[in-house]
């Protein structure tokens, strides 16, 4: 480095020598500019989400109806609670991170080690929570049918609440085998079969006069999904193409597949940041233990990884707002 950069570097710091542009060390300044560019990347993703949401503003899925699960409360409608818990996990791991940085300023190796450990544990808890959230979203809650033009139709009981396909669909014991690679031509296969066939759902619908259907369309006055009276429901259901349970990149029982695509992509990209943050935290954690920073005379490395970790928390604050609140 000394050969290419004209500084009177003493060799005590890596890169940049004794120049301190913007009054920060080389590493810290570069971490800030990396964070700036990463923030713009996340803004682009969330902005694209906003564009698509504005495009389909009258039929976008309502988050409160999508994310309703909470551990050990099966079947209980609990919107927001779980994601609030995840938010707290991440905020708290930010607190332990900043406490580690603070302890580093005072050269207290033991405290830095302890708080770094807590931060890593918090990161793992968040990742596990995210996986559970994905599992619930992929598995679905009620099931729905997809019409020929791609619209999703959900089923509601007499009180207007969504009802699960299992509650009314008639099992006909018909055989519909899964298309696997060894049976298909030209590498065709399918990942899994929906729990019921279209005929079974239709037969169940006809046999239960209390059930009606709900469209994706949002009533602008009440901001709820439009319920179609039973008498008109068959005109929609005659268009049924497939039964949908859960969500993936192609179909989404809650409405627009785009919602699922953005959810997987943005929370996945954020989750990948959390994962890499945990890995970097672990590396720094072991460096603290073996005394690298004690010998170096300062704990700035903890501060830099702390910047990254807080940024991950900062992004989550925005993901939380745009996916779950507004």
């Amino acid at each position, binding site marked *: 480095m000394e050969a290419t950069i004209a500084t009177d570097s003493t060799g005590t710091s890596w890169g940049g020598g004794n120049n*301190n542009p*913007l*009054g*920060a*060390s080389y590493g810290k300044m570069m971490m*800030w500019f990396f*964070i*700036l560019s990463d923030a*713009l990347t996340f*803004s*682009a993703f969330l*902005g694209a989400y*906003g*564009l*698509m*949401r*504005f*495009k*389909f*503003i*009258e*039929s976008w899925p309502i988050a*409160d109806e999508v994310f309703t699960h909470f551990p050990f409360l099966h079947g209980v409608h609990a*919107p*927001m*609670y779980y994601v*609030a818990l995840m938010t*707290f996990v991440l*905020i*708290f791991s*930010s*607190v332990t991170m*900043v*406490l580690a940085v*603070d302890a580093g*300023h*005072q050269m207290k190796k033991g405290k830095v080690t302890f708080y770094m450990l807590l931060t890593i544990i918090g990161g793992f808890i968040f990742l596990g929570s995210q996986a559970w959230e994905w599992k619930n979203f992929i598995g679905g809650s009620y099931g729905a049918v997809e019409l020929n*033009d791609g619209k999703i139709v959900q089923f509601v009981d007499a009180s207007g609440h969504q009802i699960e396909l299992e509650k009314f669909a008639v099992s006909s014991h018909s055989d519909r085998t899964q298309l696997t690679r060894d049976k298909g031509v030209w590498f065709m296969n399918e990942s899994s079969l929906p729990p019921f066939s279209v005929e079974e759902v239709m037969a169940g619908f006809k046999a239960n006069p209390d059930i009606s259907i709900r*469209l994706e*369309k949002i009533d602008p006055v009440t*901001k709820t999904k*439009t319920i179609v009276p039973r008498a008109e429901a068959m*005109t*929609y259901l*005659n268009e049924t193409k497939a039964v949908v349970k859960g969500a993936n990149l192609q179909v989404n029982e809650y409405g627009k597949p785009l919602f699922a695509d953005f959810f997987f992509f943005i929370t996945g990209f954020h989750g990948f940041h959390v994962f890499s943050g945990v890995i970097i935290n672990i590396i720094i954690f072991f460096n603290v233990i073996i005394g690298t920073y004690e010998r170096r005379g*300062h704990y*700035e490395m903890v*501060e830099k990884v*702390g*910047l990254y970790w*807080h940024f991950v*928390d*900062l992004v989550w*604050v*925005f993901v*939380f*707002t745009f996916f*779950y*609140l*507004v």
Partner: protein
Amino acid sequence: MGTHTQEHTSHTGLIWKVFGILSVVTIVEVILGILKPASLHLTTILGTSPLNIIFLVLTLVKAYYITWFFMHMADESKSLRRAVVWTAVFLIIYLATLLLIEGSYINDVLSPLVKWSY
């Protein structure tokens, strides 16, 4: 203030205070998100519901506290702070404004063509 690697004073009091603020703001957001009071949720102000405006403002409050006190932006030099914060704020507002106006326009053109009755 410049680099503060030589600081020896502890800021744990401030850290817990910021944690308290972030917690309270999050709890308020969650309560509002669950209750969705009709007066805030079903009325319109500045093109969206007052509830959405509240969520946006509270989010920016949280972002400020995380950046200034957890990431110690308050302790960085004014030039670094401006280079990072002003750039981000300007470009993000610019991008979001264009994308949301465009999305709204596409909706104006598209939604009359979407069939909801069969």
